[in-house]
């Protein structure tokens, strides 16, 4: 009868204690009878011994002081980090307020220009409508659209929200950069 040898994988698992009790018993029975597999498992066991008997390398200096110093650097860095965050938050709020204050007259100006432009267009289009009576209805509709007042408050709100969002993104981005810098530093 042809003898079936145990595979390398099973021998590995056997020595790693990763088999069930039934599988172990089966393999041990086979190893008792098969010289070839017995030799292979002994060679593998010798390799295990060789790997595991590697002597400990000696650490030639005490690292505890260096670790403590690195840990202290990390600790002293933390308040600085919080200070930076706080400074950025204050800067962002101030920037939002200043931006809102600066933008308000600009918006008012833009609105005035729009109204003036709309009025001029109204005169022109009325005259032009006399010449081209067919398109009068369409032009009046256009005129109506142009003379509609801009939603000032909504514009201000959108701009203020945009400035705040950009500020928040700026704080978060810088925060991440500073954190990664702090990790590298320690």
């Amino acid at each position: 009868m042809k003898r079936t040898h145990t595979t390398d994988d099973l021998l590995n698992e056997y020595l790693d204690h990763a088999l069930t009790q039934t599988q172990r018993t089966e393999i041990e029975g086979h190893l008792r009878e098969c010289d070839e597999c017995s030799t292979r498992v002994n060679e593998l066991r010798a390799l295990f011994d060789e790997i595991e008997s590697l002597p400990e390398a000696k650490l030639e200096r005490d690292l505890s002081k260096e670790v403590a110093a690195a840990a202290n650097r990390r600790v002293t860095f933390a308040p600085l980090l919080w200070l930076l965050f706080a400074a950025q938050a204050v800067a962002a709020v101030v920037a939002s307020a200043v931006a809102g204050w600066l933008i308000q007259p600009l918006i008012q100006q833009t609105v005035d220009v729009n109204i003036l432009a709309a009025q001029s267009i109204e005169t022109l289009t009325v005259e032009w409508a006399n010449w081209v009576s067919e398109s009068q209805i369409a032009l009046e509709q256009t005129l109506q659209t142009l003379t509609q007042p801009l939603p000032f408050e909504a514009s201000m709100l959108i701009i203020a929200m945009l400035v705040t969002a950009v500020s928040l993104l700026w704080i978060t981005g810088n925060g991440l950069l500073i954190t990664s810098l702090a990790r590298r530093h320690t």
Partner: protein
Amino acid sequence: MDAPTDRDLVLCARRGESEPFGELVRRYQTTVFNVCYRLMGERREAEDMTQETFIRALDRLDTFNMDLPFAPWIKRVAANLCLNRLESARPESSLDDERDESASDESPEAAHDESERAKQVRRALRELPAHYRIVVELRHYHDMSYDEIAQTMKIPLSDVKSHLFRARKILAEQLRENREGAKNAKEL
């Protein structure tokens, strides 16, 4: 007075006391250094990784389960850090010629042989691909099961087995070649 246990030291370190953590470093720095040295293969780099391991451990001391021993935990922190470092495709550096310690009661010749054997094992380990080296480290030096290795490395169980078995095959061949080379050199 009895020396404080690891558990006592961890408790104090968690409260922010630096001296107890320093004592933990002194107790385990050689163990951690050896994990890093086997994985990184270079003494200077292993020392840096040892420091990084303790800094990382200090950050994560709250995650340490006080019912378990400290040594396996700190070794696992070291192995994980080295694994991350090895995975970040760093250029291979040259292997140190280690002065492996041998038992003092051995004859100089026996000590020399043992040192040579250790050097060969280190060289063979160092020449393994990084993902093979780490499974060997976790199985043979941390005594982890296949499942634990799979969890630590976040890879399937089948990969753990194939990496480990291939790594052993390569190690066996490498060591056999080294032995034959040394034998031939002696005969010449």
